[in-house]
Every structure is written in structure tokens, then in C-alpha cells.
């Protein structure tokens, strides 16, 4: 990785009417870096991407991308970046390969190169067999992957990926992540928004956590995890739990922060293991819950996210998936 900054953001702000969507963001991204932008729904991730990719004008602040000022040279910037938006919005009535060729035409890829590059990308993304299938007839995962491929057809220096794996099945998501690693190895700078913290942990060199339009913490995943390593995390799994009962832990236990992981497990964050166990097990007994296992946890990015934002990563993911389903 080189030390040259390819993205420098200074005081980037966006108002929609009186609503402050993005609040004076400042950060920089180095060449070849994979940078993760994490946050719950409505945190301002997509708005930030829309501003950095020239779709939406910032209300205040600016950014310098690959040496070009965002406000003055947005077309030059667009030529050098690729964007896969959150929605797979390629053309339903064009085939997978024709969509890629159309994008190559818009970006001014030389005529002789267009088909070759489109075919290369479809092979790389394991979609070559589907090259002549209409976009609307592709599966959701294939649409997503084709949308990412379309962002790469002009060989951009920076790729912006807005929730690239959202809604994909496990196999498709794993395949896409492996492709993102290959891109990183090729020296492409990646700006990635995601609500999958594990994805950010494994893919990103650095991560920014954004809540209500503001960056609350920025650093490598390891640096962020160290935020919580001062304390202790204990995971409790119950045999007969449910979300309603587990919510009582959140509300009623004092001095210990509780995160509900799923219907029968919680994570407790506190100063000392003994104190955490005493409080949680005492309450579990009162609630008639049977304990299946208790274990001490090494902090993950999820724990750091919880510590920094107070938001449960699981609830955040469920909200995101729920929103996607409603939109579909």
C-alpha cells in the first residue's frame, strides 16, 4: 500500500431541507486501501457515497479525489472511479454482457476493448454462462454481481461499493468478498459501505463508524477492537430464551451493558467477569431461564461497534434485511 492519499474529505456536509444527513465528515483514504464505512440505517453512508461520486452536491465542505476537486472536476473524477450503488439498477431489457458493453461505451473504453473486457469480467465473476441472459431474468445475487462488474469495466482506480453483499446468499456473498480481495491485490482502492461487521473486519484495512451523519471512530479493525478490550465480555446462551425475556436484561441490569445476539443468547460488557456473571445469572434464575453455556469472548468488531454506538449489530442487520424485503 502506498502512502499517497487518493481521497481527502474535508467538512463534507449534507442537508435535506432542515435535516442534517451528513455532518462535517473529514477523513482520508490511501491508495490501495480498502476502507469500510459502517453504520446503521440512515447514518449517512449512502449520502456520503452519493456526494463523493458526484451524484449529489454537498451542502458544505469538499473532497479531493485522485488529485481533483470534487466540486470543480466531477467529470474527471467520474472517469477514474467505479460505483456499484446499493440498488442493482442496470437495464432489465439488456443482457448481462450488453449492460457491461453499454457502460464501457459511456466511459469511453476503446471500441476493440469493450467486448473483451466485458467477457473478462463475466468470466472473473463466474457469470460468463449467463452473458446473454436479460438482466431482469438473473437471480438477485447475479444482478448484484453484474452491477459490481459494471463498475469495473473501465478499470477504475477507486471503486465505491454500497452494501455490495446485502441480500446475497452465503455462497454468493463469499464469492463476492473473494473477488474484492482480488481487486485489492490488484491495487484498486475500495470504499465499501456495509452493515456486516464481520465483512468489514475481514476485508477492510481501516474502518470508519458513522452514526447520525457523524464519524464516531476511525481506525484499523484492531484499533477499534482495542476500544473494548479494556473491559470484559461474557456470552450467555440460554436453553429457553426468547427476545422478549432477554430484553429485560437490557433494561434491568445496572452497570453491565447487554447486547441481544439472537433469541437465546446475550453478550454482557462490564468491568469484571465475576460481577457480570453474578448479575446476569441471578437475573436468569429469577426469570426461570436455564443456562446452556457461559463463555468469555475476545472482542470483535461487533463488540467495538456496540461499545462505540450503543447499537446492537444484530438488530442493525435485521433492520437492514427487513428494509430490503419491504423494498422488494
Amino acid at each position, binding site marked *: 500500500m502506498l502512502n499517497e492519499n487518493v481521497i481527502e474529505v474535508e467538512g463534507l456536509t449534507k442537508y435535506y431541507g432542515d435535516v442534517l444527513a451528513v455532518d462535517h465528515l473529514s477523513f482520508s483514504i490511501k491508495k490501495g486501501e480498502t476502507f469500510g464505512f459502517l453504520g446503521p440505517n440512515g447514518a449517512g453512508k449512502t449520502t456520503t457515497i452519493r456526494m463523493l461520486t458526484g451524484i*449529489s*452536491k454537498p451542502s458544505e465542505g469538499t473532497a479531493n479525489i485522485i488529485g481533483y476537486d470534487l466540486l470543480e472536476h466531477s*467529470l474527471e473524477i467520474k472517469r477514474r472511479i467505479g460505483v456499484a450503488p446499493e*440498488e442493482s*439498477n442496470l*437495464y432489465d431489457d*439488456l443482457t448481462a454482457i450488453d449492460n457491461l458493453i453499454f457502460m464501457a461505451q459511456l466511459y469511453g473504453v476503446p471500441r476493440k476493448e469493450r467486448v473483451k473486457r466485458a467477457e473478462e469480467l463475466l468470466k472473473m465473476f463466474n457469470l460468463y454462462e449467463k452473458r446473454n441472459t436479460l438482466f431482469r431474468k438473473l437471480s438477485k445475487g447475479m444482478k448484484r454481481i453484474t452491477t459490481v462488474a459494471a463498475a469495473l469495466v473501465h478499470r477504475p482506480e477507486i471503486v465505491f461499493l454500497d452494501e455490495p453483499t446485502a441480500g446475497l446468499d452465503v455462497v454468493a456473498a463469499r464469492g463476492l468478498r473473494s473477488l474484492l480481495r482480488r481487486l485489492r491485490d490488484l491495487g484498486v482502492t475500495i470504499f465499501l459501505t456495509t452493515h456486516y461487521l464481520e465483512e468489514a473486519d475481514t476485508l477492510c484495512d481501516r474502518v470508519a463508524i458513522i452514526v447520525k451523519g457523524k464519524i464516531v471512530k476511525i481506525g484499523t479493525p484492531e484499533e477499534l477492537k482495542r476500544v473494548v478490550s479494556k473491559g470484559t465480555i461474557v456470552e450467555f446462551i440460554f436453553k429457553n430464551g426468547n427476545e422478549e425475556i432477554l430484553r429485560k436484561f437490557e433494561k434491568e441490569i445496572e452497570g453491565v451493558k447487554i447486547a441481544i445476539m439472537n433469541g437465546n443468547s446475550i453478550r454482557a460488557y462490564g468491568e469484571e467477569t465475576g460481577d457480570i456473571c453474578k448479575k446476569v445469572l441471578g437475573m436468569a434464575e429469577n426469570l426461570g431461564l436455564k443456562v446452556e453455556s457461559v463463555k468469555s469472548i475476545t472482542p470483535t468488531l461487533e463488540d467495538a461497534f456496540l461499545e462505540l454506538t450503543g447499537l446492537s449489530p444484530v438488530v442493525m442487520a435485521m433492520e437492514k434485511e427487513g428494509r430490503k424485503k419491504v423494498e422488494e
Partner: protein
Amino acid sequence: MKNSLRCIFYIILKDMRTYYLKPPALSWGILFPIVWTLAFYLRHPQGFVQLVPGMIAMTSLFSTTAAEAVVLTFELRVGSLERLLLAPVTPGTIFLSKLFGGFLFGFLMSIVVTLGSAAVLGLHLNIPLYLSSLIPSLLAFASLGAFLCVTVKEVFEAQTLLNIPRFIMIFVSGVITPISSLPYYLRPLAYLMPLTYSVDGIRYSTFGKGFIGLNFWLEILILLAFSFLFIIPGRIMLSRKFE
């Protein structure tokens, strides 16, 4: 400039492939003008020749605006227009590409109706004058269509909104009856409608004289002025959609 022209060219090609045969373009842009023309022909075949300029102008109006509703509103609704903005293209270039997408569809339809009418009725058009009138007419109608289509979210809303000026123009712009036969209080309205100058220009190229008594080239200038009147706010409104 070269980049913009390239993008306009490829966006139009893509729109021709993907949208020209969509149901709203077919029904309002092709079927309606054909049915309307046939209805008038069957009612009064002998006098139909006098209606031909109006039918050609009306076809250009309906086909351009119907195509705008599809290429612009449909893409706005499904988010594909934003996909275009991700490429090195300005909102102004996208607006123009959509405008010319409708223009081209209207041009093809108008040529088909003109050739059909000329063949059946033995008309001899002055081709340079005909094209001099048709091209600014299509530009004015495509601009009107694009301007109105940017203001709505759904294709059916666009078609409904477009029907307001379309139907007013059919009745006051000299398509069916000369403007001089209109009640006196409707005549000023006729002069505010681009279709009036389109019908009159095509009539001039067909019969050597118009109905409204204005200089042919002045009518062309008025049609171009209408185009700018719609292009500028339409382009601004499209940019605002993405703020």
C-alpha cells in the same frame, strides 16, 4: 463536448433497443395517431387531404411525448437514470439524450405517416420545407414532453399529464378545423400552442401556404423558442432530482 456527444449517441441507441416497443410508447405513440388518422379518413375520404398536415403534426406530437414518458419517467422511477449519472455524464447531457430519444422516435413515426399519406393521396411535399418545419416541431414537442415528464414519478402519471396539452392542442391548433373557425375567445389560446405553428408549417410545405398568415421562417423561430422555453427548466428540474 466529444464525450457528451458520444454519451448522447449511446444512450439513444440503448433507449431505442429497450424502450421503443414498450406498451406506453406503442399505444400513445403509434396506435393512437394511426387510429385517429384512420377515423378521419374513413369519415370523409375526399376532404382528408386537407387534414394531412394536421395528422402529421399530431403524430409528431403524440409520438415524441409518448416516448419521453417512457425513456425519462420510467428510468427515473426505476433508478436507472441515476445509473447514467454515475458515468462521466452531466445531468444536462442526460436530459438532452432523453430529449433526442423522443425526438428520434417522433421523427420515425412522422416519416412513416407522411410517406403513407403521400403514397395513398398522391401528395407532393416540398421536402426541404417539410423537414425545416418537422425538425423544430419535434424538438419543441420532445422538450415539452421531457419537461413535463421530469415533474412526475410514474409513467401513467406522465401520460395523463401529457394528455392535457395534447388534447387542448388537437382542438385549438388547427389539426381538425382552421383556427379562423374557432370561437374568437379561443383563438389567443391557439397562438400559445406549439402545435399551431407545426401544423401551419407542414401545411405550408404541403400546399404552399399556411392558414395563420405568419411567415414560414418566423413560425420555425417560434417553434425553436418553445423548445428553449421547455429545455431550460426541464434540465434544471432533472438536476434537482438528484440533490
